[in-house]
């Protein structure tokens, strides 16, 4: 189009409408952000990210605590020597201790004294009871060199040879149970994550459809001026990615603060009976730096899932609008 000076005004509006100098500039976005139900979507994504982060953090804590228990238990062997009429228990204990010390791979052997054994039973039987009258088995704890392949059968044969009433336990059953519990926790955590991500995708799809319905006139006009679906989708997608990231940062940040706060609480309570019970169960309740990195990455993944779900819905909806 040639300039106004070349052609003159085609539509003459008269003297009462002077042509003012133009200050026009492009400032408006193609898709106004206010037209997308942003706050609700940010809240949904934040809640989903928070739940996913709590799940991941919880699973990591349980896995770490379980791994710690397992490594502690796996490096320990317990021998129980039961009293039997006609046998000298103290002699049996001494012989078993010697036999265990002679076994390669064992770094420490500690037989429990009569008093120590009594103390072990105190929580169940109470104090002031004479253990002399009870056939209380005695315990010998051995610590195995970590990383060595230990021959348990050889030790068992050697121990039973010197004390037929002894039994050797390497806590394998306990470890197996622990392993299945950890596996179940991981599986449950993974299941929850899948559900959270599915709920996020559904919520984002609904929000996208709503936004597209609200902005249908804009989409139609953009089609009129020759915009392709990719161009239009990208303008919507920008908003959804931003909303997803906002929600992810808020949800992930809240979860990180939550874990940091719980760690502080655990520290405040350490030394108290409740704190000690808790620490025995879940360790120090402190998420390692890797855990925080996992939560941050998860927030990014949920933002990406938001973008992907929005994009998928956008193209499906655009195909139906012309």
């Amino acid at each position, binding site marked *: *189009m*040639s*300039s*106004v000076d070349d*052609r003159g*005004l*085609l*539509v*003459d*509006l008269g003297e009462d*409408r*002077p*042509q*003012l100098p*133009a*200050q*026009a*500039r*492009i*400032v*408006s976005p*193609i898709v*106004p952000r206010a*037209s997308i139900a942003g706050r609700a979507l940010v809240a949904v994504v934040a809640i989903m990210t928070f739940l996913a982060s709590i799940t991941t953090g919880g699973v990591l804590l349980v896995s770490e605590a379980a791994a710690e228990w397992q490594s502690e238990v796996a490096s320990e062997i317990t021998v129980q020597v039961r009293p039997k009429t006609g046998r000298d228990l103290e002699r049996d204990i001494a012989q078993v201790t010697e036999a265990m010390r002679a076994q390669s791979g064992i770094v420490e052997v500690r037989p429990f004294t009569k008093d120590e054994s009594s103390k072990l039973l105190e929580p169940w039987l109470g104090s002031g009871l004479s253990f002399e009258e009870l056939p209380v088995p005695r315990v010998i704890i051995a610590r195995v060199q970590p990383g060595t392949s230990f021959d348990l059968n050889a030790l068992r044969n050697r121990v039973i040879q010197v004390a037929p009433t002894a039994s050797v336990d390497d806590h394998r059953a306990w470890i197996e149970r622990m392993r299945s519990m950890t596996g179940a926790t991981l599986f449950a955590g993974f299941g929850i994550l899948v559900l959270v991500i599915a709920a996020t995708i559904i919520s984002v799809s609904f929000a996208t459809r709503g936004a597209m319905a609200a902005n249908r*006139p*804009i989409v*139609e*006009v*953009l*089609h*009129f*001026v*020759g*915009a*392709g*679906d*990719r*161009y239009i989708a990208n303008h919507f997608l920008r908003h959804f990615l931003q909303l997803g990231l906002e929600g992810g940062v808020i949800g992930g940040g809240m979860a990180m603060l939550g874990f940091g706060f719980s760690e502080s609480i655990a520290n405040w309570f350490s030394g108290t009976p409740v704190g000690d019970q808790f620490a025995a169960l879940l360790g120090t309740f402190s998420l390692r730096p890797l855990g925080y990195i996992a939560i941050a990455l998860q927030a990014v993944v949920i933002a990406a899932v938001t973008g992907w779900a929005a994009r998928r819905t956008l193209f499906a909806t655009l*195909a139906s609008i*012309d």
Partner: protein
Amino acid sequence: MVRFENVGLRYGLGPEILRDLSFQIPAHSFQFLTGPSGAGKTSLLKLLFLSLRPTRGLVNLLGYDISLLGKEEIADLRKRIGIVLQDFRLLDHMTTYENVALPFRVMGRDESSYRKEVIDLLKWVGLGERMDALPPILSGGEKQRAAIARAVISRPQLLLADEPTGNVDPTLGRRLLRLFIELNRSGTAVIIATHDITLMDQYEARRLVLHQGRLHIYE
């Protein structure tokens, strides 16, 4: 430029709205598309703008058989066609300037490369002082001119206008007709759908008359 061969159109399972349309629109031509209300003028414009696909027949537009085009190719082709609709379809959150500049923005051009062109056109159609106004505060005539400016800013090869003078008084109607004639002289083929006999009488041009779904051409 445009070639229709035995084109028919029906909505769903309903009766045929357009029947056996065969005509050509030469480049740089000017024509009125007329007929009584409900004759199918808007449907024919939608076919020409690729918003609808014919249920039968061949449509060749700007050298392309439209039945072979994908969505992105249709979008590219629409960049070469301007359309003015009865309800203007301006975006309410954008100023008049931004609305008119929209086709360039969609093309991905830098604002500095088209700003002067948009301002000149807005002045040319008498909207120089309304560039920063939002559509809701524009009058019907101003909206009409803004919609026309948006349709012609990228110098389309084909301009389609649906009742472009339907919302303006006769004086402004004449002015808008002059705008279309001027545009046609600069090389754009123009099709104006109208049932305003007075408007058509003001300019000697080919008339495409739709009646009961069939097209009659008066050269």
